[in-house]
């Protein structure tokens, strides 16, 4: 089976302003790829180019092995067989939920009765059967987006485009809808291209994450690769909490190293694709890569109790360190504590963020 989506050297601009450049991306059938980036990084533009709403300035887009976009030829959106869930829901104010979900079925040539029956099944699947006769004005944001998702599923597309589908929902609702959306996407067997600026969402739902910055991919990889091996400081900060410590590397080999902190020698997991040189090195440390109760000295400068876990900020001789540990706070602010470093990641690209 050919890839659901292949993007090659895609460039895009609004007038003379470039928005995307040199984008290469392959999405396998059934695969879920998250586009992670801050607002203005080009996520929506990329989705719109795949959907056929924007013509590329350069490069090609292929769906199921067929070229659908080049800089001078465009297949119209309705013939691409992709579905989309919109950030602002984009429900039609004059149609009921049932008519809305039946709409794509009707467009595929089904008679009204069949379309309505299928729409009802999809509404039931999304748990909103009772809303069938309501119009968008009578629905909450979460309900509207459930209808929006049902409409996209009704398209029976091989590729789902999700444009920050939960950006405008409250946090608890968001988590529930994200889980459901991911579940429905997996069940439908469609591939998904999922734009988001929320890293927890991207890491949780995607098979792979593509990090967008100023219209270019800076790194593409599995969620674990992104979290454990970010390419540079900017990506490290985007893909989760990250502290930067300056360590004196004595010796390194494979993915282990011995370093000196505070005059104490410590062994830890430390790797980098370009190798770790001896001497003073900047090392990225995730909050779960260190622990309290160790031989190194630090003081607690701040802490935040978050229920299941507690975040600590430590002042160490190697720099400021964010630490996350399960349970309630074990010490108070200002306390002198001992800590332990288990793991680090030497950023291969030391460029400024």
């Amino acid at each position, binding site marked *: 089976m050919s890839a659901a989506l292949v993007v090659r050297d895609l460039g895009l601009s609004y007038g003379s302003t470039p928005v995307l450049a040199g984008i290469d991306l392959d999405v396998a059938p059934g695969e879920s790829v998250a586009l992670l980036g801050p607002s203005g990084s080009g996520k*929506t533009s990329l989705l719109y180019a795949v959907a056929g709403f924007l013509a590329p300035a350069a490069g090609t887009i292929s769906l199921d092995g067929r070229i659908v976009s080049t800089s001078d030829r465009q297949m119209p959106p309705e013939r691409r067989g992709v579905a989309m869930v919109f950030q602002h829901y984009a429900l039609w104010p004059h149609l009921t939920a049932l008519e809305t979900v039946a709409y794509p079925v009707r467009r595929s040539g089904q008679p009204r009765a069949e379309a309505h029956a299928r729409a009802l099944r999809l509404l039931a699947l999304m748990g909103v059967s009772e809303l069938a006769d309501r119009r968008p004005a009578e629905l909450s944001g979460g309900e509207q987006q459930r209808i929006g998702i049902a409409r996209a599923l009704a398209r029976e597309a091989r590729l789902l485009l999700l444009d920050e589908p939960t950006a405008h929902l409250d946090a608890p609702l968001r988590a529930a809808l994200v889980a459901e959306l991911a579940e429905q996407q997996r069940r439908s067997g469609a591939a998904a291209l999922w734009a988001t600026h929320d890293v927890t969402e991207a890491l949780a739902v995607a098979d792979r994450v593509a990090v967008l910055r100023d219209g270019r991919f800076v790194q593409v990889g599995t969620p674990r690769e992104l979290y454990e091996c970010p390419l540079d400081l900017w990506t490290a900060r985007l893909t989760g909490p990250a502290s930067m410590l300056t360590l004196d590397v004595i010796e390194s080999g494979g993915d282990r190293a011995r370093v000196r902190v505070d005059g104490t020698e410590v062994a830890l997991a430390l790797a980098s694709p370009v190798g770790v040189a001896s001497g003073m090195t900047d090392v990225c440390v995730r909050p779960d890569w260190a622990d309290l109760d160790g031989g190194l000295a630090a003081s607690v400068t701040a802490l935040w109790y978050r229920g299941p876990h507690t975040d600590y900020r430590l002042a160490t001789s190697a720099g400021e360190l964010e630490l996350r540990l399960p349970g309630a706070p074990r010490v108070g602010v200002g306390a002198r504590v001992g800590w332990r470093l288990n793991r680090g990641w030497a950023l291969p690209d030391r460029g400024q963020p």
Partner: protein
Amino acid sequence: MADGLRHLGVGRALALLVVAASFGIAIAWPLARLAIETLGSGLGPFRAALQPEGVEAIGNSLVVAVLVTVLALGGGMALALLTEHAIVPARGPLLAVILAPLLVPDYVSALGWTRAFGPAGLLDRLTGLELPGLYGPVGIVVVLAAGAVPLAYVLIVGGMRTRAEPDLTRAARMSGADGITALRTVSLPLLWPVIAAAGGLIFATAMNAFGTPAVLGRPAGFATMTTRIYGDLAFSSADAAFERVLGLGFLLVAVVVVAVLLTGRLGPALAERGSIGGPVGQLRPARRLPIALAWGFVLFTVGVPLLALLLTALTRAVGLPPLPENLTFANFGRAIDSRTVPALLNSLVLAGLAAMICLALGAVAVLAPNPAWRRRGGWLVTLGFAVPGSVLAIGTLLAFGRSLRDTLLIILIAYVAKLWALGERPIAAAVGRLSAAGAHAARIHGADAWTELRTVTLPLLVPTFAAAGLLVFIFALHEVTISILLYGPRTATLAVAILNLQQLGDPTVTTALAVLLTLLLVACGIPLLFLHRVLAASLRA
């Protein structure tokens, strides 16, 4: 604090009293007099109106208005789809040319069309072709429709922008609908209320039109209700003729009011006029053919007639080709004589006073105690705008003719009745969009009611006031339907002077005067463009 509230209460009561009195004088009493006069004299006026000549005029008016409505809506819709659903190169200039006819009075357009496409017009001279039937119903429909396209365009675009239109259309395309299906199943159904309201407004405007039927219809012996009313009132002193005026006037207002009520929501539609900055970008570039068609349309309906008008005004004598050796500014000198200068002054004084009064009356919208009052008040003054100018003029004549005949004041009263809504609607709309939080913040931080009004609410409304005032000024400068029925020996307006000159003959002087008026209007219109931007920005913030 309580002190401040009480002062505002007294001031507010006084202001509302003035507004109510103005409404009574300018709108209610004249219309009541017309109703009393018409209905009080039995069936005479209707019998007079329903004689063959009257029936013919009624039929002509209805056919013309229906055709104009259909054509203008089609044109406005096509242009709106082009500029709102696609990226158009040179969008700014295209919009300016599409909207330009809003500034040009219809009788000036009609003059331009005769100079461009009529016998011995520009087209005739260059290619030997002329537009068949320009003098008569075809010409009237075409010119009125071309003039109404910008109105349809503005209203439809306003309607599109109040919703997240592009996203809704995209959702349809993502669901498998092609462009036409998306238009049919999503864009059009959502726009129906706006289209209906725009249709009602355009139908009313076409029914009320006087200048174009006067310029293009009378030479062909084609009369509409408005030109028949004018003919009967101006050229006949027979009682039967006046009865017919009453009957036709009453029927005209009935048709227009019913049309406006049926299509509903005239008020919101007026207030909505291009008031919201819509989402642009994220669209596809337009195809070449629609762009070419749009430019062709505006050049043909706006550019060529205005060019022909200008060339005629600059040519030494009618019939000479517009070559360098035949060009002259002398026509402008001849146009400015002892009749037209007072007429110009009359127009400026009337427009200035009308603008100030309508603004002052509209400003009371800020004081109206609650939105429901504002809405009802808005509905009432919109009635004045919807009533045909000829009918307002007859009513004003019946109400004040005995004491004020042939004065500027009687024209001013009718102008206020007609243009009040243009001052009030934008202000009321802006007030409606102001967030109460700003006012609350001022009060909580120590401003009393008047200080809050002076330091927060009014400054935010300044651009709106300026725009509304200019709008009234421009429409008053345009106006001919009312003034031609109410002017006396010393109170002719510039528009009346142009129409009278046009009936008498010399096209070069007439067109020169028309060009002067148009330049004046454009000069007033340009600030509107800038104000519009300020307006959108200040209200978005």
